[in-house]
Every structure is written in structure tokens, then in C-alpha cells.
């Protein structure tokens, strides 16, 4: 049986998804009659009086479902390197002490001497350099415009950019890092950059031999290998791929006799707006340079923070069985009718509700629901976590999950919970409010 075209699969998918929509009856007059109703989707929730109803459940659920950078940030400790850069298949910092990043070139002192004091300034200068005529493939012009800066942690950030060429444009990310020289002065350096989906896979640099491969997509991929000072060591041009080509096999990079301790691998795919650049050091292998590691940083909700950790409560539950109830507030967790899902039911005084999560969402560590104030002004937040999570903390308040379930009763509608494993090497933040 032939598989439907991807476009048709998408159409069917969207329709089936949209059919799951549930809309309660509402007349326009009722909507207008709610005179104090404010715009509901905003950067921060506006102060509201008591309504005696649920207010945050969707926000917490949403943090699990789609949560943006403002909601979920993963990190590993004690290293200050972002979690998403840790897996072995991604490029790690270069091995040589003299090599910091792509731009400005050089060691920490050289980077600091360039005096780029913000992520935006170094990203803008970097893109201006890379889109200057001398650094572009022959006959190709490109213009880059930087956009929003997303802070990953105090010394790492991502700068969004758009790359325009004659008949195409693409969105990309520049990864930047703040470095410190021996005097304590700081400066920002670009460590990687890529337009969406452009990447070099299976990169290895062993004994002066650079290997890798890239997807053969519309256009001609041109690879330039440089030393960290910017001197061109080798160039390669891939086989041209027409726009309507049926997914051809990947093309390969195979360059021998390189002697630099670290090399920059830069790729343009013309005539499209496709670009990626990364740094690889001698001894590294099996790494991915380009979009995938950057996207992992940019969309941390895709990083299952506690992936692989079981949720024992799910294994031990019979359908519909409650494993926790009649606590000072009623909070229960029960298996749902859909395999692989857990639902939280919670109640406090006169308000109650529930939320359901699949295992992938629970693996993020931030599956939670929250209730608006009850008549006594209390707010209930309840969540379900994988076995790996040992504590949920906020300030001096530390909550230990029981049978994968945790909850807290507070008097505040705004929270920032730290959800951590036992040795503190994995921490995610759940922001509510």
C-alpha cells in the first residue's frame, strides 16, 4: 500500500486533531457581558480578584505541552554548560585552550579584546562578517538580520536571525558564550550558528581526517574547512540537487591531511538561504554540527529532562485505581483510559479539577496542574513526576514526591518550582502565573 504524500498526511492529521476540540456553548452576548474580562494570553498574568475557579491548570499543562523558553529551562550542574550541549552526539567545547569559538577568533584574551559586550552585538558582527562578499560562495549574496536574544543561562545565549538571499530566506540561531580573561574582563564569542534544519552529521576529526555527511536537499552544498584563525584549509562542493528531487541519499565529506588542532566546518547551500558553521576538535567523533543541537537549546521543551526514568505509579496502578487520597487536601493520581497516561485529580474546598499527561510530558518533570484560590484564599498546585525526581522546591520549601505525586498549598498564584533529581545534576523550572 502506498503511503499518502506527506502533505496529505498533514491535512488528515490536522483535521483529526481539530476534531478533538471541545468548545462549551457560549453566546457572544455572554462574552461581552463579562465586563472585567481581560486579554487572557499575556506575558504575565494580571492581578485578579478571587473568582473561585480554576485558573492555572492549562498554564501548567501548557508548560508541559508546549512550554516556551520562559517556562521551562533545563540545566545540568555543576557544569555551567547548558544541558542540551551535554549529550555526546553534539559538539562540545574545543579541546585546545587557545580556541574559544568561531568569532572573534582566538583565546579568551583575544575574545575579550574585541569587546563585544552583548550577545546581540557579537552575533550581529559575526553575521555581517559571514555574509560579506569574501566569505560567501561565488555569485551568492546574503543578508542577515538579528532578532530576539534568548538567555540560556548567565553565560550562554541564543540570538535568532533571519538570512535573506535572492529568492529565499531562512530563520536561524547563533549560539554565543561569555568568556572571561585572566584579568576578569569579559566578552562574548560565537560558538555555533545555523539556519533551520541545516547541519553536518556524523562529524569526526581523527588523525587529521575530517569525515561527515549532510542531507542532499535542493541546491548545492559548499563546504569550507578553515582553521580557527580563518585560513581556508580545504573546500568541497556537493552534487547539485534539483528542487523537485526525490530525497536523494546523503552526501559525504572526506578530507584528509589536516593538521590544525581544531577546524571550523562552514557550509552554505546555494541558491537557498542555508548556512551552518561549527567547530570540531581533534579526537571528536560522531557529533552533529548545526541545527539540531541549537534547536535543542532553543526549544528546551523538546528535551525530556528526565527521559528514561520510569513512572512507577503507572506500572502499579489498575485502571481507575487511586493511589493517594484523603490528604489534608484531596490529591489523587489514577491511570486513565488511554494507555500510557496518568491523570491527576485534585480538590481543595469547593474547587476541583484534573489534568492528564502522557509519559513524554511527565518525563519533562513539569507535568502539573494548579487551582485558583478557594474561599480561604488557598492555592493548590499538584504535579506528577518520574521516579528520578526526588524533590520539588521553591525557596525554602522542599516537597518530596510520594508515589510520583507532589502537591503544595500556598497563598500565591505565582510560582517558580525547581524540580530536581537526587544529586542535583538535573534541574528544571516550572513557572506558573
Amino acid at each position, binding site marked *: 500500500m502506498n503511503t499518502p504524500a506527506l502533505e496529505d*498526511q*498533514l491535512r488528515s*492529521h*490536522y483535521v483529526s*486533531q*481539530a476534531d*478533538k*476540540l*471541545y*468548545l*462549551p456553548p*457560549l453566546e*457572544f*452576548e455572554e*462574552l*461581552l457581558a463579562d465586563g472585567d*474580562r*481581560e*486579554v*487572557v*494570553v*499575556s*506575558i504575565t*498574568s494580571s492581578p485578579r480578584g478571587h473568582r473561585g*475557579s*480554576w*485558573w*492555572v*491548570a*492549562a498554564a501548567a*499543562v*501548557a508548560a*508541559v*505541552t*508546549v512550554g*516556551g*523558553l*520562559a*517556562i521551562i529551562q533545563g540545566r545540568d550542574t555543576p557544569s555551567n554548560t547548558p544541558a542540551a550541549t551535554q549529550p555526546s552526539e553534539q559538539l562540545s567545547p574545543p579541546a585546545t585552550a587557545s580556541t574559544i569559538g568561531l568569532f572573534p577568533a582566538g583565546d579568551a584574551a583575544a575574545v575579550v579584546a574585541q569587546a563585544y559586550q552583548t550577545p546581540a552585538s557579537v552575533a550581529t558582527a559575526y553575521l555581517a562578517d559571514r555574509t560579506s562578499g569574501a566569505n560567501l560562495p561565488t555569485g551568492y549574496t546574503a543578508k542577515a538580520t538579528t532578532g530576539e536574544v534568548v538567555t540560556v543561562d548567565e553565560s550562554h545565549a541564543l540570538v535568532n536571525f533571519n538570512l535573506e538571499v535572492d*529568492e*529565499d*530566506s531562512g*530563520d536561524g540561531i547563533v549560539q554565543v558564550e561569555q568568556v572571561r580573561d585572566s584579568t576578569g574582563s569579559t566578552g562574548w564569542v560565537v560558538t555555533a550558528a545555523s539556519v*533551520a*534544519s541545516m547541519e553536518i552529521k556524523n562529524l569526526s576529526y581523527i588523525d587529521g581526517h575530517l569525515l561527515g555527511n549532510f542531507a542532499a*536537499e*535542493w541546491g548545492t552544498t559548499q563546504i569550507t574547512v578553515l582553521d580557527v584563525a580563518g585560513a581556508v584549509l580545504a573546500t568541497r562542493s556537493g552534487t547539485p540537487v534539483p528542487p523537485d528531487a526525490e530525497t536523494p541519499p546523503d552526501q559525504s565529506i572526506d578530507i584528509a591531511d589536516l593538521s590544525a588542532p581544531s577546524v571550523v566546518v562552514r557550509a552554505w547551500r546555494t541558491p537557498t538561504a542555508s548556512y551552518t558553521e561549527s567547530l570540531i576538535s581533534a579526537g571528536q567523533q560522531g557529533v552533529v554540527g548545526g541545527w539540531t543541537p541549537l*534547536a535543542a537549546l*532553543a*526549544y528546551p521543551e*523538546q528535551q525530556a529532562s528526565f527521559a528514561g526514568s520510569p513512572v512507577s505509579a503507572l506500572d502499579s496502578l489498575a485502571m481507575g485505581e487511586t493511589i493517594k487520597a484523603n490528604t489534608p487536601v484531596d490529591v489523587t493520581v489514577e491511570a486513565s483510559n*488511554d494507555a*500510557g497516561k496518568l*491523570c491527576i485529580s485534585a480538590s481543595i474546598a469547593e*474547587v476541583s*479539577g*484534573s*489534568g*492528564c499527561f*502522557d509519559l513524554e510530558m511527565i518525563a519533562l518533570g513539569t507535568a502539573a496542574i494548579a487551582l485558583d484560590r478557594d474561599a480561604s484564599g488557598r492555592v493548590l498546585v499538584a504535579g506528577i513526576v518520574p521516579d528520578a525526581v526526588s524533590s520539588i522546591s521553591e525557596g525554602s520549601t522542599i516537597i518530596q514526591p510520594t508515589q510520583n505525586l507532589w502537591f503544595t498549598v500556598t497563598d500565591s498564584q505565582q510560582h517558580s518550582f525547581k524540580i530536581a533529581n537526587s544529586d542535583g545534576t538535573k534541574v528544571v523550572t516550572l513557572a506558573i502565573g
Partner: protein
Amino acid sequence: MPKLSEDAPQPVAAEDLAGLFRARREPMARLAYVLTGNSQVSDEIVQDAFLKMHRNWEHIANPVAYLRTAVINGCHSYHRHVAVERKAPVTRQAVAISVTDEISDALAKLSYDHRAVLALRYFCDLDDFEIAEILNIRPGTVRSRIHRSLAQLRKEIPQ
């Protein structure tokens, strides 16, 4: 409602706006749902869009296009900041999130901008120019985003 000048468009009759709400609330919520996966959030986004439209009605030349843009922007804002307040009590049905499938997983790995373009093309069946107007980008960027998104999905979904 601001006082209208003589040459301003005439305000729509309340029943017309109500009729538009009845006719367009669900289609707009369906669009929001494919981008948020959450019924209540989708409903809230659409309600907000109608409320904004009601407040700005005299300046709106194309209500349907306005609604689409407001819904897409609302979904974008939701994805970025996710601070949602609600009017109605939550029901289990509204909060429940379905188990993800292969296409959902693959779509989730795209940026919101790319998912929005795909939804507008393959769910709303809009052309490049209509999508470009809604998203305030160039038609070439629409084509590029669709091309890149499909390429990325093909990597994720075995064909």
C-alpha cells in the same frame, strides 16, 4: 466604544458580530487547537480575538483575516509565554491531552513559526500571499518555511 467620525465605517450591528461569532468561533478555535493542542486555551484565544475585534471594529476592513491574524498571534503568545487565565471552570475533557502520535511528535520539533505556516497551508488551505499577510512576512519566506518544514518532517516521519 470610541465616538465615530462621520466618514468612519459604520459600526456593525450587534447581531452581525454575534452572527460572525457563531459562524467563526469554532473554525477559529479549530485552527488554534491544531497549534496549541488545548481546547480551553484555544477557546480563550478565540474569545480574545473576538473581544479585540469588538473593541476595534471600526478599523477592521476584513474581519475574517483579522480573526485569523489575532488567533495566530494569540497562539504565538501562548507558546512563548503561557500565562493563561480562564473564565470558565476546567473540565477533565477540556484539560486532557491526547497521547502524541508520529506526526504530532515531528511537528512539535518545529518552531512555532514553521508550524503556523504549515497549519495555515494544509489546514486552512491558504496560499502564500494570504499566509504572508497573516504572519507579516514575505511570500518567499512562506515558501521557504514550508519547504524547510516539510524537509524536516520527512526526516522525522518514515515515508
